[in-house]
């Protein structure tokens, strides 16, 4: 079993932006190169695996002492169907890379963000179209990005460009049960599992690598695998880590 080590803990983010400058950064970068940073040696390998969620995950539902004068036209939906689509698998401690920006959408539909979790590269734009027949007000006060898109009606959309790596928690000012997460990474080694929980990280640098599975409620789970040139390493996750 290639699963060599498993740790569980909360992290500051997938790629917390370095706050140190000058020589300290150079020193840290040098040490990272000598120790656990991805080392490109010939043909890269890949990491494949499967994610399972071993505990029930609950989603917030509307609640309020004053629900408003109008009654909801439809019950809030939960999307996507599989909670596994809310997991992000990424290469931990990867050095920043030049990455192509992406363009994805998080729709506001039936008082739910869909998808609720997206992973994008630095410089990507995320659209927030409103599909509901009432206002939403998307905003975030996260360190990696703070924005407020104001209110806009159905059929309208606003977009946000994410220029810093980190975890951006997104909310609706009007509907407190709505939340989403944009994970911004400055390297290409990340993936969201499919509905069956399977994922693949292609073109991973060879060597000892830490692979992290992140879930907004279950936190980070990290495994270490050895990636050999042209080979496929396996990293399976059960979230959260079962008690021993």
């Amino acid at each position: 079993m290639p699963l060599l080590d498993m740790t569980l803990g909360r992290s500051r983010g997938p790629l917390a932006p370095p706050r140190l400058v000058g020589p300290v950064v150079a020193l840290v970068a040098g040490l990272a190169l000598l120790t656990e940073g991805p080392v490109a040696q010939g043909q890269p390998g890949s990491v494949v695996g499967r994610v399972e969620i071993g505990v029930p995950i609950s989603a917030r539902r509307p609640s309020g002492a004053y629900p408003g004068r109008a009654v909801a036209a439809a019950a809030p939906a939960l999307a996507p169907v599989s909670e596994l689509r809310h997991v992000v698998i990424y290469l931990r401690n990867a050095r920043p890379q030049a990455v192509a920006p992406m363009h994805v959408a998080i729709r506001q539909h039936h008082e739910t963000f869909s998808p609720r979790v997206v992973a994008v590269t630095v410089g990507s734009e995320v659209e927030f179209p409103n599909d509901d027949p009432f206002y939403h007000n998307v905003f975030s006060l996260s360190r990696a990005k703070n924005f407020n898109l104001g209110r806009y009606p159905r059929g309208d959309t606003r977009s946000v460009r994410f220029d810093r790596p980190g975890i951006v928690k997104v909310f609706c000012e009007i509907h407190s049960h709505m939340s989403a997460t944009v994970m911004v990474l400055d390297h290409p080694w990340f993936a969201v599992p499919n509905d069956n929980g399977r994922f693949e990280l292609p073109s991973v640098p060879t060597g000892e690598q830490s692979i992290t599975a992140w879930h907004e409620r279950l936190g980070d789970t990290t495994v270490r695998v050895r990636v050999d040139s042209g080979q496929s390493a396996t990293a399976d996750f059960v979230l959260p880590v079962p008690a021993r």
Partner: protein
Amino acid sequence: MKRSRPVVLLALAFASVAPLAASAQEARPSRVAIDTAAAVDDSVDANGRHLTGLWVDAVVSVGLGKGFEAVAWPIAQRVANTGVRSADLWIATLRYERPGPIGVRVDGGLLGSPVGLANLSVRRPHLNPTIAQPAALFTALPALEPGGPRPNLLGAIYPFGGQVSVSGTRWDARAAVIDTSPLRRRGIFVDPKPPRFANLVLGGGVTPFVGFRVGASMTRGGWMRAGESSTTPTTRNATIVTVESELSFAYSKFAGEWVRDAIETSSGTRVATGWFVQGQQTLAPRWFVAGRVERLESPLVSLASSQAQRMTTVEETLGYRVTQDLTVRAGHRARRGFGRPDYGHQFSMSLVWWKRWI
């Protein structure tokens, strides 16, 4: 029966192979929803007198299935102006809701007030754009009946009763029967308690376009029991009419309400009116400004005369959202009370914490 056997076996085999039950891989709506708010505000007036208000509350709801939900809203507070501490249960209701093109909601128990926009939108500190709440909710009108109780224009009431709401895409309507007059606040654990009065509430509104609603309501019922004053041999009724409107777009949000009370007294029907207009503008993701102008007008009635009196309040607030949960506000309030010639000024700071737990 024989044909179903392979299907059952196949299902059993699949279930044994499947690593986890489907329910573990799919999110389900939580049965319980809890959010809490806490606020502290400190005001200083022109005489250097400090007034500190405190607020803690929680809204807890439990989904009971098939559209039913139980909601409770306990609060504890220290009122800044009076220093009075109290704890109460403002809402404890069983709610049924059926979404649809014509949605239906039924509430029964201890209800949030079915009357008034202020009651609907600003009663919790994180929802109130300014530091103070509209004065009409708490400020007593001048005496309308010599020796009798002093009513509110439209109090923050939490009555026992039942309410039915229906709505379509562009309209809403509601009817409620409550045991408390909107003119007289009545707490569950707070004394003294005014008598119970059956009041009927009818209300509705139209939404011509998203972000704009105009509504109105009428409430009719008793407000003063026979014998509450020496000049009141019979129970007196009151009719309360409200017109409310909300407009929001982009980074702006406005709301306004007009209230007219026709209050029966031993010297005839007295009329008290009032209105407020408030606005909030988001300046940046963390910054906002808000303001409210409010005016109340009511007669001061004595045995010999009746004199119209006014109260005017103007408040401006600058807010900064430190985090998703934490907001700091600074504000100024000018207030000219009933029968007062001049405005009094207060400068306030407020810290509001709100968190959705589940």
